[in-house]
């Protein structure tokens, strides 16, 4: 179990190091995630512990960003000024993204993967 936790921290550390060395605006955690996918795909091994640790962490993501969400108490000024704009932009963007992604995916599945069974 400790080994699996260590593995997540080591990949996070490697991602953070690459982030700092490159100066790229990609979060170290995202780089670490990509590195871990590559590692899992290329190195064989028992994954049961890593699976249980990472699924426990992802199942509890919500509580981890509560302190950040509470930070909204400091943003009253922004909401007073740009509240409507933020709500409109977020709503339209969310709906439009669902529509565009679904339509492109449906078209591309029919065009490039017609033999895959639709579900």
């Amino acid at each position, binding site marked *: 179990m400790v080994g699996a936790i260590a593995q997540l921290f080591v990949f996070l550390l490697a991602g953070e190091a690459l982030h700092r060395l490159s100066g790229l605006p990609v979060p170290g955690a995202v780089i670490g995630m990509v590195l871990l996918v590559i590692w899992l795909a290329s190195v064989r091994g028992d994954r049961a512990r890593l699976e249980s640790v990472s699924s426990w962490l992802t199942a509890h993501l*919500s509580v981890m960003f509560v*302190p950040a969400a509470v930070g909204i108490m400091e943003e009253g000024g922004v909401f007073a000024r740009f509240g409507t704009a933020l709500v409109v932009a977020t709503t339209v*963007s*969310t709906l*439009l993204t669902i529509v565009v992604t679904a339509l492109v995916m449906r078209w591309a*599945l029919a065009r490039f993967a017609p033999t895959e069974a639709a579900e």
Partner: protein
Amino acid sequence: MNALGGLLSTQLFWLAVTLTVFAGADALSLRSRRHPLCHPVLLATPALIVLIRLSGVTYATYSGATSVLGFLLGPAVVGLAVPIHARLGLIRRLALPLFLALLAGSLTAIVSAVGILWLFGGPPDLLATIAPRATTTPVAMELARQLGGRPSLAAALVLGAGVIGAMVATPLLNALGVRDMRARGFAVGVSAHGFGAARAFQVSETAGAFASLGMALNAVATALIILLFAVLA
């Protein structure tokens, strides 16, 4: 009372309060059968704000006291590698459709959110905050921070997008006539991250799997697209 007053600025006190409030919010959310409007974060956040105000401590104190929770987001995001790896076979078989839909969806999310806010006269730090609004919360907060935006506001916008997406996805996709559960799930995951995935799992296992794939892939895609914009700008 003075002997206990100092407790109000300790890690112990605010972790105990935050976890207890969240556990209560989670129980209510379960009772609502996980309705998006009763997401535990949406219930717990206002309750905690009231408690912090009553206690008289600043947000900086609260944030410092509970920083261990935010710290866990790093390894949790790295852990998303496991479900992606488990679906690598699927990703290879459907590489082109997934790539095209992801690219279109990710670009639409960034450009439409930033564009609309810009039309309303939003300043650069708000544009940086809303740009990653379709990604999962920890990634959005980190991207917003790196772009010079406001992480807390980014978290709030991501939660808002999640609630809207989870509530509207089913009627919207029915109206569009998209019946393929792969396309429906993927679209909701790309646009509404974890909320979308949770909703998709209620509809079908296939939709849920494609939604969590969409969420994970869009975290990477949004980071890369923003990187590309940053390099070109």
